[in-house]
């Protein structure tokens, strides 16, 4: 049987009439190391067309294959439990850490602020008023270190 020439093979290929064997032969001839440079593009296109586009299988794909195989008799390879789908994304963790740090700083600031005591400024009886004044004066006297002034204030007003 006569071997077809490359031109005959090419014509059949582009007309959709080549058999699988003829297509394989054409590919081999186009990709041969001593093939003329003008065949290079056709050879490259045939190679690309015969390569499936790259696709990444979905998460847990191989695990599900093993799970399916486990249902077969005699297949007893250990299958790890299905990994739990990660709910928390990295940004959730980052936000949580930032919030915790802000809360910590807020609490620290509050603890550092001076404490203020609010005194009631209303006296209901004269005795209460006198006692308040004496306490206030005593406080002033102690602060200013005026000696025994505090003792002199002990008696009733003249």
């Amino acid at each position, binding site marked *: 049987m006569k071997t077809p020439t490359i031109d005959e093979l090419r014509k059949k290929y582009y007309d959709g009439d080549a058999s699988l064997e003829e297509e394989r032969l054409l590919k081999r001839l186009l990709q041969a190391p001593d093939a003329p440079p003008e065949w290079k593009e056709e050879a490259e296109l045939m190679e690309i067309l015969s390569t*499936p586009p790259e696709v990444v299988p979905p998460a847990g794909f191989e695990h599900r294959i093993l799970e399916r195989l486990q249902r077969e008799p005699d297949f007893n390879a250990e299958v790890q439990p299905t990994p739990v789908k990660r709910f928390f994304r990295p940004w959730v963790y980052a936000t949580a850490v930032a919030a915790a740090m802000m809360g910590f700083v807020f609490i620290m600031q509050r603890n550092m602020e001076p404490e203020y005591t609010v005194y009631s400024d209303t006296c209901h009886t004269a005795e209460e008023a006198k006692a308040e004044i004496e306490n206030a004066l005593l406080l002033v006297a102690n602060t200013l270190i005026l000696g025994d002034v505090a003792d002199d204030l002990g008696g009733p007003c003249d």
Partner: protein
Amino acid sequence: MTSKEFEEKYVCLAPRLYQVAMSLVQNQQDAEDVVQETFVKLWREADRLEQMQNAQGYILRMLRNACIDQLRLRHDETDLLHVEESIADAQPPPQTDAKDRVHAILRSLPPKTQRIVTMRHVAECSIDEICEATGETPSNVRQILSRTRKKMIEMFKF
């Protein structure tokens, strides 16, 4: 063959098989089902598989047949009426990488056309097998292959 050996020797091929299945059935769930089914069949023939000279070729053929069965179940929606126009309208995308360019042109074609081209070029299916899987006539399939190849090489050289 133990299940552990099977897992180590063959289950690692799963991503590659998924890639081929995806290019043929063009649906994530169907591709995963087809690959799982292929592994179940392989496990049932595991001992025979060990005796084979070209086990990977056998596995690919098994996968290809499973894809054809899957496609036969859904002689789908896509009609070939607009194929001529879509092939004629397809424009070379701006990508510089030849592989990306070819795959982008393929993706721009109707699903059934993509499938016919992929079945022929990636899975090396015969015209009869393509007709069986797509519900098309042999002359339609040849015509699609012819027009797509001519357009592809024209764009590729552009």
